[in-house]
């Protein structure tokens, strides 16, 4: 379990990093915290010619509130969020998610941009940030583009990143005073990847909800028009109105044939709804 040979660069400025990526046209990989790429290199699942280590890029480490939303640079670590070293516009929602990602050792090095770029369906941020309505900015030499997290994740380990692009920042909108947050997951043991994730942002005052069913084999199910899950109406009694049959049907439609798997996903989602209502 040793990686195939690769060249290594650690650029000090963002443009240099982008130039290196562009020059290699697809045979380069970015490393930040290395918590997923490291094992993949050792298993020779990826064999890039060049590793561009972006951990020295100061501009990707910023975290600031701008225009009412939180902008987190791609290099912000899970531990930065867990420990409250970054500002928060989600009233603790992100902090709670961060604190339960893998193990502390992983959280110390793993980054929010790396987690999104890796697009592992069982990872926390792709589901949590989709529920929070976050967007992600990608930058390449040709410029930047911004898209919702759910549009960024295309499938298992598959993102909208083009060759030569880097996730630059995540934009998290402020959670409104009336929005309830719930996040639940099922892991076979502490710190393991989840086998089911439920993330819900429910605003009974606005009669709206963003519901995410994550840790399925492919991209998370993001339900922005969620009234059917609550018997046709999102109101203060949403916890009682939550309809497990609708959730089960959504999962069946998404291709999950195994009834026990669906049951666990639906149960986890119900936990998230209950947590939001608590």
């Amino acid at each position, binding site marked *: 379990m*040793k990686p195939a040979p690769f060249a290594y660069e650690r650029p000090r400025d963002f443009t240099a990093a982008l130039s290196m990526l562009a020059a290699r046209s697809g045979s380069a990989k970015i490393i930040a915290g290395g918590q997923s790429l490291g094992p993949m290199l050792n298993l*020779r699942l990826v064999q890039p010619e060049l590793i561009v280590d972006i951990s020295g890029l100061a501009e990707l480490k910023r975290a600031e509130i701008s225009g009412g939303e939180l902008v987190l640079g791609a290099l912000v670590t899970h531990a930065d969020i867990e420990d409250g070293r970054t500002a928060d516009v989600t009233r603790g929602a992100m902090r709670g998610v961060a604190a339960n990602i893998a193990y502390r050792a992983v959280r110390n090095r793993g980054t929010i941009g790396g987690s999104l770029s890796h697009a592992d369906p069982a990872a926390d941020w792709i589901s949590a940030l989709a529920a929070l309505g976050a967007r992600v900015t990608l930058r390449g030499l040709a410029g930047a583009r911004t898209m919702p997290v759910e549009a960024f994740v295309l499938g298992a380990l598959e993102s909208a990143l083009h060759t030569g692009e880097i996730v630059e920042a995540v934009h998290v909108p402020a959670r409104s005073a009336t929005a309830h947050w719930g996040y639940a997951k099922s892991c076979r*043991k*502490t*710190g393991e990847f989840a086998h*089911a994730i439920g993330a819900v942002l429910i605003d009974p005052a606005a009669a709206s909800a963003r519901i995410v069913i994550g840790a399925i084999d492919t991209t998370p199910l993001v339900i922005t028009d969620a009234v059917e899950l609550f018997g046709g109406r999102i109101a203060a009694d949403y916890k009682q109105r939550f309809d497990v049959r609708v959730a089960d049907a959504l999962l069946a439609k998404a291709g999950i044939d195994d009834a*026990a798997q669906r*049951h666990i996903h639906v149960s986890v989602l119900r936990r998230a709804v209950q947590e939001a209502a608590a």
Partner: protein
Amino acid sequence: MGARLPRKEDDRLMRGRGQYVGDIRLAGLQDVAFVRSPLAHARIRGIHVPERYRGSVFTAADLAGIKPIRAVSGLSGFKISEQPVLATGKVRQVGELVAMCLAPTRAEAEDIAASVTLDLEELPAVTDMLKAREPGSALVHEHWGDNVFLETNYEVDISGALDAPIKVTREISTARQCMSPLEGRGVVATFDPRLDQLTLHSAAQMPHITRSGLAECLGMEEGQIRVISPDVGGGFGHKGILLPEEVCLSWLTMRCRHPVRWLEDRREHLVASSNCREHHYKITVYADRDGTLRGIDCEATVDSGAYSSYPFSACLEAAQVASILPGPYKMPAYRCRTFSVATNKCPILPYRGVARTGVCFALELMLDLVAAEAGLEPGEVRLRNLVRPEQMPFDNITRKHFDSGDYPEAMRRALAQIDIDAIRGRQRKGEADGRRIGVGVSIYCEQAAHGTSVYSGWGIPMVPGHEQASARLTPDGGLELRVGVHSHGQGMETTLAQVAHEILGVDVAKIRIILGDTAMTPYSTGTWGSRSMVMAGGAVATACRELGERALRIGAKLLQHDPASVVLQNGEVRGVNGSASLKAIAHTWYRRPQDLPADVDPGGLEVTQGYKPVRDSGTFSYAAHAAVVAVDPDLGEVEILDYVIVEDGGVLVNPLVVDGQIYGGLAQGIGTALYEEMPFDASGQPLATTLADYLLPGPIEVPAARLDHMETPSPYTQFGVKGIGEGGAIAPPAAIANAVNDALRPLDVELMQSPITPHRIVAAMLAARAAERSAA
């Protein structure tokens, strides 16, 4: 003896100063990576090595004269497998060694391995041990005509049980596991032309047996081979076999004349090395209405994998099931048929507890079902059927000779400490969070240090006889002990010193234990079967007694006493004229021989003595385990709320070390119960190829168990000690499964398969609901 002494070896081990195979640095060392079979079953049509790497890659064609590994059992009908150290003709498991690649670093060796291409003709894989027994199955070893290494039949008049009013039949199975020591296997081989000696450093539990096996495969004299096993980071059985890698690297270093190294990485451990535990039982238990056992009828199948491993063989596990299934229970009728089945998987090895973990799981789950049929508490059914203390020593229905113990008392204490009545009350009230509480018990016996009379019957390459130890007083009064067993977490550098201290009174700090080196220690079958404290401890005591007797005679001369009028106490010889320290006595023997008595024993202050217990049928330690769990039926999650272990290991040399052994075993037992499983697909591909898929319990998953010790000395051993190394891993799967089933019984959910995963719980619950609906 009996002191909770912190382990001497921890001074280096806990500071990161241990020296493992991977820490050995030799000048000119090069690394090896293997090309391994990507297929479970295939004919090798060709092995293509790029031109630039010829000379760095070696295949079976290069290894002329090297014999395959053969571990034959003498049991009637055993079919022989030959494991070529590098594959010839066919590959029979994923990960089988095909070619050996040499380079200055492991990464470069892996580059070379990646450049080698194999031309393989895939054959149908044998992956299901039950289907493998059926006619028409693909064959792992064609010339056998079937896939059965060995079938055994054992019966004591089962017909007498058939009219019992309670008859419960189930199929029960345990998953294939990987033993997962912190340190994997590892080999550093080097050849010394001056000594004409191959030195093999290997993370091995049984260095002397490794040497014998190597000599057989390499066609060398044993004296030409030295096996050194340095610090070893956990064995559990995984390090108890002769590896094809050991043979390959031995050959390689003699060919290239420089040191070579191979270190097992975690993926090799998971997919290519050796597995354990995969059992299947079809079992019927007969009982009277009051829960009294009338008999057991069982058909057990064990997936032995592709090859018979040296020295334990492919049949030890399954055939053992027949003799150990009844355990500490009385019954008048018994029948058991066993099959050791060859499949296209890694060889199976005896893992901590060996067949006992599966046997305990099968029988203890069945006894809970008997209890449910009889309308009794599970604990009550055990108490009715366990051997009673006044029946000791007890020969059970398979003629296992139980040396001593009070099994019902262990069970009663476990039930009291887990507070069974309080749990039943809590169950009636229900849980606020919707989870369900369950309580489960299990009890087992652990036969340990079983010797010649037991193993001669197996006819495998290794039969333990007398265990030897050497004891030597140094000129400055220190004590050196040489033993052929090894210590890889058992704390023997401390406990053997405690034994010597008990006899000679030498300060434990001044006692050095030398082990893990065939050139430095007496021959031994090594550390396995929970034998080391009984056997090596007994040998150390015997050697130290002889040494003490010799020292006493010298001391008497120094004190101008008759030897009959002095005693050895607290490290000195005492008489009415005063005392002579062992240090002074040693000084006299080595440095001032002119002061020795005329009739001094010319053997001096160095003694090698052998030892066997009075009876070598084994010590029987045992424990009752009780678990309380909370089960979330919707998520399938299981939390262990409380865990009690009441164990009897006879006289404990060091209770702190024993506690550590029990906690470690418990962690592995929890792994078996809830987490660990190596699944295979239909083509024989192992599916859990990293620790993200092969789940091991971590600190959060292992509860702080409550331990209670009973002490029934063995009548047959020095000091009354019993082997206890494996027990912690035997009972937890049964106790935890019984607790889960107890929690879910009101839902008509029953789990008879380890590990008990969330998916299995939820699937069983949905099936029970569906059955209820269709009944209604």
